[in-house]
């Protein structure tokens, strides 16, 4: 998982138990608006795991806060659990606490900030965003050397293959009846087929490897649905993410849809609906 965005140091933040007293290292990976993500170990000292904590939000009414935090961690865990059973490539749920545990002080009083947490299987590999950025830098360098904007067929085919794999992964997700809700290239990890390849240093000036399996992560906004509209919006979000983050690969986005179309029976109607969603875009008026 990505370590590209170091979280701001938050010395005042106390994680919920048992992590408040844990002697096991918690390595901060990312602090978003909703959740804190750490790399740690779970069940055994040698099993790497991703810990996601949804801290309580002190600005909210405590009853509402508890209700939301609980509902969301459960929603995420249920989606992941369902997907693991259906053999969709997502991190498995290893541990969970939705009870909103609050650390006890010396007198045993439990008040203060609590939170819910979810421990997931650690996924080796690099997020697709990083791989595509590296590839785009490589292509730029190549274009400078050769003076031509032409992308060599081998390189183009490599990216097409990666994008088809992404489409197939999203298709398997939708087939299982889950909508991701936030598909971006930062939420897709390319897990190398062999563990050794994961640790091999990538050379900055070479074309990055695109071998491996796509694993979808961060189901914080996921929901269960088999509606074409929801599926189409999921794809549209991914399409926009490609457009804004990876201009050089945008022209290959069609390959994602090719991979998607081949992945399950319901893909056709969802893709048809995608055309409507694109047309609609964000053209809504501001009048209430």
């Amino acid at each position: 998982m990505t370590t590209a965005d170091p979280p701001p140091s938050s010395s005042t933040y106390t994680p919920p138990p048992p992590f408040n007293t844990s002697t096991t290292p918690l390595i901060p990976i990312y602090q978003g608006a909703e959740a804190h993500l750490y790399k740690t170990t779970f069940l055994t000292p040698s099993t790497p795991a991703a810990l996601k904590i949804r801290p309580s939000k002190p600005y909210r009414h405590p009853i509402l806060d508890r209700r939301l935090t609980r509902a969301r961690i459960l929603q995420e865990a249920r989606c992941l659990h369902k997907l693991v059973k259906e053999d969709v490539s997502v991190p498995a749920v290893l541990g969970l606490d939705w009870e909103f545990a609050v650390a006890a002080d010396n007198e045993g009083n439990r008040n203060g900030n609590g939170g819910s947490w979810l421990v997931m299987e650690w996924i080796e590999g690099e997020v697709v965003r990083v791989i595509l950025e590296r590839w785009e830098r490589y292509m730029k360098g190549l274009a400078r050397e050769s003076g031509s904007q032409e992308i060599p067929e081998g390189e183009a085919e490599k990216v097409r293959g990666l994008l088809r794999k992404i489409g197939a992964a999203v298709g398997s997700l939708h087939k299982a009846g889950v909508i991701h809700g936030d598909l971006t290239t930062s939420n897709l990890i390319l897990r190398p087929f062999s563990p050794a390849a994961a640790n091999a240093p990538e050379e900055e000036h070479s074309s990055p490897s695109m071998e491996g399996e796509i694993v979808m992560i961060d189901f914080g906004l996921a929901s269960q649905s088999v509606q074409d509209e929801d599926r189409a919006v999921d794809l549209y979000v991914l399409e926009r993410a490609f457009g804004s983050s990876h201009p050089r690969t945008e022209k290959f986005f069609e390959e994602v849809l090719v991979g998607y179309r081949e992945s399950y029976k319901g893909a056709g109607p969802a893709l048809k609906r995608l055309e409507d969603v694109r047309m609609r875009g964000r053209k809504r008026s501001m009048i209430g």
Partner: protein
Amino acid sequence: MIAIGLEGSANKLGVGIMLHPSDGSTPQVLANIRHTYVSPPGEGFLPKDTARHHRAWVVKLVKKALREAHISVADVDCICYTKGPGMGAPLQSVAVAARTLSLLWGKELIGVNHCVGRMLYAYYRKIRSLTLLDIEMGRLITGASNPVVLYVSGGNTQVIAYSSQRYRIFGETLDIAVGNCLDRFARTLHISNDPAPGYNIEQLAKKGKQLVDLPYTVKGMDCSMSGILAAIDGLAAQYGLNGEQKEDEEEHEITGEPVSNETLSTRKPTRADLCFSLQETVYSMLVEITERAMAHVGSKEVLIVGGVGCNERLQEMMGIMARDRGGSVHATDERFCIDNGIMIAQAGIMAYKTGFRTPFKESTCTQRFRTDDVFVQWRD
């Protein structure tokens, strides 16, 4: 350079006069007056009646503003007016008034996007006041120089941040605006529209204690309000709290005695409880989508603008969130939160300085006018 601003996109008609001294010193507000159309309790303001109000009052207000500012017509450089978005009929009334003044006095016309006017105005005020207060605050100004803006009013609910010469909408309501939701619930309870329905809901909410379960609909950085309104209207009907307040209605708050949690969860909610729950729920949603946008663009500052931005509970919640992220919240104070002519004059004069003009033929108004349609020339 002097600009008159006319604002009448909703039920408030405002006239403001703004002076930008030629030596580049601090701009001054020469006049800022307003007259509000108040509809009877249980009713919203209808476009037709609001437009009639604006037509009846615009001449009086312009004359009064000129008197207050101690200037004559000859001193005025341009007439700025709200082009949209807003309610059609009131917008048209004000546009007609602006065109008439432009022709009558031979002054340039500047059509202003209401939303951009608000943000620019709030922004400008913040920086000026901080500069005056303390030069040391300069650092803070740099920190706050690119805030995430929550724009909340009767017609708008948007989370906006500035990037590459445009205000980009990161999130918005998928149906009705937050102010609209509050106003409509005020109508359900027949709460007075004087001075404003949202203000009266806020006062009532302060007496509420019990949180009732309402839908909470956030989708990424967007949110939805219509389900909440339907649910709370339903609860009001279920408990017989809709319509005018009944004589025999028990008011638990009056005793002033603390209510135990147990009693709270079993007793029947009051009107105050419903207002409290509505505020807690919708403001939590607004703070949540604002926080998401802040995390997304890496900003620590929030600026709340628009009429709902006056709400103290919203400001408080936003403050707690921003503090936890190591930032702070700026909200425009009450006088400037509600629609006024000054913000239109200010946005207009800035555009005027860059050479922008609205030709007479194009001096229309439009109900739909997206904030991200405007190319911003005055910022970099």
